[in-house]
């Protein structure tokens, strides 16, 4: 894959790689540290499974193409509790519950008898990082296979122990069925000493997993397995980890982006009681018995610091800056048919530009890490979606082997694609090394809003060519800076060209929930509306007459039916001050369509009154969690659509706080209605990202419907559409 993200991965045609997801890290070979297993899991048996090279490593972990290895996936304790291990993290998307369900389904055990150890680099196989909606399509099947293999082991061992025919045996509720009367055999028996020998053989790699039509645990509404701990305030997030003798750290930040530290005097802070002050190149940090003392030390040192600042483009000149710094090559251009000819012969040609701002993930829990050194062994607890990458970063920073580093990610307070980096882990480890005590660093909200990374801003040029009948015969879509995902045209058009251009983006950029799909869907779906208006056709009809795939069509029909689109559209042409709009799209193998209704307030401002979203991601694994993900995506998408935008000037953030950067709150919630299409005949794919992409263009189109003003920029500010 090239670093621009243009080539398509082979394993899944629909997954466009995101350049911001790519990581040119070293090849990380995973070694299991067996001592850790004994310490954490206690007695019992470990079951290893053959691990193919992880398909999503190019997105999630470092390197790729690792050969097949054996890795410990499962542990069965003498009491029959099964522990399953994965490198995936729980950041609120519900992976812990869903993976537990997947294991329980194949083991035929109740959810309560399956434990999951997640994201501990010393434990279990490397399933890659948590990104790109890959947990459902990749890790759920991997865990199901391993657990189905364990179930088969149980049957085979019972068959040989009781001289029964394995084919006549089944497993229910963790117990073998079909044994001679009075005989019992379950997972606890597998862990018994007498059967250890039976387990020393290869697990069949092609073991079959249960069919979605037969699911009894997957596919069923299953509440969060850690729900009680969460409502009880007992769950320990990364920022809640406390180690004996732990200090708290604060880092000196530059006054503006790119500023270089020329001079600082740490004498005064070194004299402060209990303070460890560290300067190591540009890194200046302070550890103290509490965070207030560390902050005092930092602020004292900061007063005398001298910096050399650097020019930095402001958010006001952002879109010009992106355009002028765009790469000139056309390597990323995907052409179908002869778009240039289509535009020459067209009866009508439209061309518009769309803008999308930098926004931030702003997870409720800012970056946090606790680092502890013991005899050159480093353990770090941190909130990251990429534990293996963080371990690699630490190994590079401290020039030590990865076998000396253990990274543990406790279930974390939000990610949304914003926690792929390991800077806070490196900071905590540097201070802990100097202080010779464990150190905890928790970024402040302001640090998170300034020094984390952002969803890239973008400029998108779209052009369309219509023939005399109103048929779309040519399409062009060029994305500057924000990314290539979902840039492909989902409607049937004979001639099209899509292109992604690298630019010199002024802010540190990275992944985000659905990333560039939101930008590309906003431009495409808004422009489809413009074309429909130019052709004089209902926007739903216009889309359906350039037929998208059956699955996209299905969600479009489902959403518009529930919304009552045909009637609403017809009625609304005569109504004032309200508008309806729709949008749809596909990304990462799932399909979404959203209809929205807006109302114009008497003062000219607007509000989103209601939205209907239809979503399809194959066979539904947990309807409760799916509903939450879809609702959460739509509500979060409102923020980027209506208000969220990072503003900066002279290398400083102008709105690095929740007071100035307004995210959706409870009262912002419109009336939401959701249609979930359950395709049990199709493999399940992820659902935590794609449902976010439809709401912004649906609102923009609804505003046009209400006031006949086109919105071509996100967020939609009131001054953009105010009717004349």
């Amino acid at each position, binding site marked *: 894959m090239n670093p621009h993200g243009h080539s398509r991965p082979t394993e899944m045609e629909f997954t466009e790689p995101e350049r911001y997801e790519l990581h040119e890290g070293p090849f990380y070979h995973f070694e299991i540290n067996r001592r850790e297993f004994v310490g954490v899991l206690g007695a019992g048996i470990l079951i290893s499974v053959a691990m193919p090279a992880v398909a999503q490593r190019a997105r999630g972990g470092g390197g790729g193409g690792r050969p097949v290895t054996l890795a410990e996936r499962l542990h069965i304790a003498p009491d029959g509790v099964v522990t399953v291990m994965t490198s995936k993290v729980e950041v609120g998307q519900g992976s812990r519950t869903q993976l537990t369900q997947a294991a329980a389904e194949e083991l035929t055990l109740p959810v309560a008898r399956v434990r999951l150890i997640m994201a501990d680099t010393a434990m279990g196989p490397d399933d890659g990082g948590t990104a790109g909606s890959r947990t459902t399509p990749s890790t759920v099947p991997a865990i199901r296979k391993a657990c189905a293999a364990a179930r088969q082991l149980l049957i085979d061992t019972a068959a040989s122990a009781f001289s029964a025919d394995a084919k006549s045996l089944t497993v229910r509720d963790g117990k073998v069925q079909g044994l001679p009367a009075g005989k019992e055999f379950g997972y606890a028996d597998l862990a018994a000493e007498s059967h250890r020998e039976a387990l020393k053989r290869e697990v069949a790699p092609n073991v079959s997993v249960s069919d979605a039509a037969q699911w009894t645990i997957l596919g069923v509404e299953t*509440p969060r397995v850690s729900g009680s701990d969460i*409502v009880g305030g007992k769950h320990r997030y990364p920022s809640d980890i406390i180690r004996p003798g732990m200090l708290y750290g604060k880092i000196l930040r530059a006054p503006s982006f790119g500023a270089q530290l020329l001079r600082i005097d740490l004498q005064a802070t070194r004299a402060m009681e209990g303070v460890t002050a560290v300067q190591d190149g540009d890194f200046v940090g302070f550890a103290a018995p509490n965070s207030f003392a560390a902050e005092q030390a930092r602020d*004292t040192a900061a007063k005398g610091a*001298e910096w050399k600042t650097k020019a930095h483009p402001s958010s006001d000149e952002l879109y010009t800056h992106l355009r002028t710094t765009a790469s000139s090559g056309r390597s990323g251009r995907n052409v179908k048919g002869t778009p240039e000819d289509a535009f020459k012969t067209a009866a009508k040609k439209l061309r518009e530009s769309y803008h999308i701002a930098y926004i931030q993930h702003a997870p409720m829990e800012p970056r946090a890490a606790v680092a502890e050194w013991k005899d050159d062994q480093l353990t770090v607890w941190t909130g990251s979606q990429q534990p293996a990458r963080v371990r690699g970063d630490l190994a590079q920073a401290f020039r030590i082997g990865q076998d000396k580093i253990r990274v543990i990610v406790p279930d974390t307070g939000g990610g949304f694609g914003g926690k792929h980096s390991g800077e806070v882990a490196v900071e905590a480890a540097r201070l802990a090394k100097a202080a010779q005590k464990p150190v905890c660093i928790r970024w402040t909200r302001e640090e998170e809003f300034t020094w984390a990374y952002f969803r890239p801003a973008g400029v998108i040029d779209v052009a369309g060519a219509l023939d005399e009948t109103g048929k779309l015969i040519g399409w062009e879509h060029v994305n500057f800076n924000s990314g290539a995902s979902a840039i492909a045209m989902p409607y049937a058009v004979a001639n099209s060209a899509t292109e992604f251009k690298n630019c010199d983006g002024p802010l540190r950029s990275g992944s985000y929930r659905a990333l560039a799909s939101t930008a590309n869907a906003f431009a495409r779906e808004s422009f489809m509306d413009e074309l429909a208006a130019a052709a004089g056709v209902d926007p739903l009809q216009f889309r359906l007459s350039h037929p998208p795939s059956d699955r996209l069509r299905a969600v479009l029909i489902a959403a518009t039916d529930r919304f009552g689109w045909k009637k609403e559209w017809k009625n609304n042409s005569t109504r004032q001050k309200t508008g309806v709009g729709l949008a749809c799209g596909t990304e990462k193998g799932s399909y979404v369509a959203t209809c929205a209704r807006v109302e114009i307030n008497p*003062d000219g*401002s607007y509000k989103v009154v209601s939205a209907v979203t239809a979503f399809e991601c194959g066979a539904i694994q947990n309807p409760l969690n799916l509903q939450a993900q879809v609702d959460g995506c739509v509500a979060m998408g409102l923020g980027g659509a209506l208000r969220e935008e990072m503003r900066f000037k002279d290398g400083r953030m102008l*709105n690095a706080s929740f007071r100035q950067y*307004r995210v959706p709150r409870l009262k912002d919630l419109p009336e939401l209605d959701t249609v979930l299409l359950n395709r049990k005949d199709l493999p399940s794919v992820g659902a935590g990202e794609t449902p976010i992409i439809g709401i912004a263009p649906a609102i923009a189109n609804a505003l046009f419907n209400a006031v006949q003003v086109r919105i071509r920029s996100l967020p939609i500010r009131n001054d953009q559409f105010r009717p004349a």
Partner: protein
Amino acid sequence: MIESGGQSSGFLIVIFIFSGNDGIKIKSKITIKNQKLIATSSRTPVTPSLAGRSVSRYHHRCRRRPVLAMNKTIEFKLNGQSQRVSSDPRRTLLDVLREDLQLTGTKYGCGEGQCRACTVLLDGKPVASCQTSIEEAGGHSLETIEGLGRDGQLDPVQEVFLQEQALQCGYCVPGLVMTLVGLRRANARVNEAEMVDALNRHICRCCGYVNILKAVRRLASGSPKKEVVR
């Protein structure tokens, strides 16, 4: 609410208030005079942080004092028990709860009272512990999420949050729960609109507002029990 008493020139604060999702409306402009902190940091050529310092009342107060301060012994009631801490009086209640008393159920989310993840009850009333100094807590009765429930039973608010699955990452949940517990203590018949008003001061960044609203409605309707598999 904002302390005054320094010698500097005035400072303009514009408060943006959102009502519904109908965009930004400037509701009020308040000119605050004599903000010593702002004058101090504007005189300081280099500040440790990059962005504009948040207009946090707490930070203003604590920075007006000299850097060197003696620890003070501060006593208060915590989850029904007497508690004594020795601390710099300027530290936040939030930091002392988490760092000195290891009560990590109360969360940091913003440090400016905007997200309310740090909500605790002070004399039964919900307050943002990131905006309360430990000195201010002295002599009062405090309750944190760890103090809720009795004999292993959850508080009805926690129970309803579980029933309605009003949690995704769950980081905002202790704050939401404490606010609702405080409202219900003050008024057992607190209605939906009052609860929604109070929770609108909180942020759930997973935007799990649909289920949070369901929990509020269940509480408003008298919290009938609903079977939940755990």
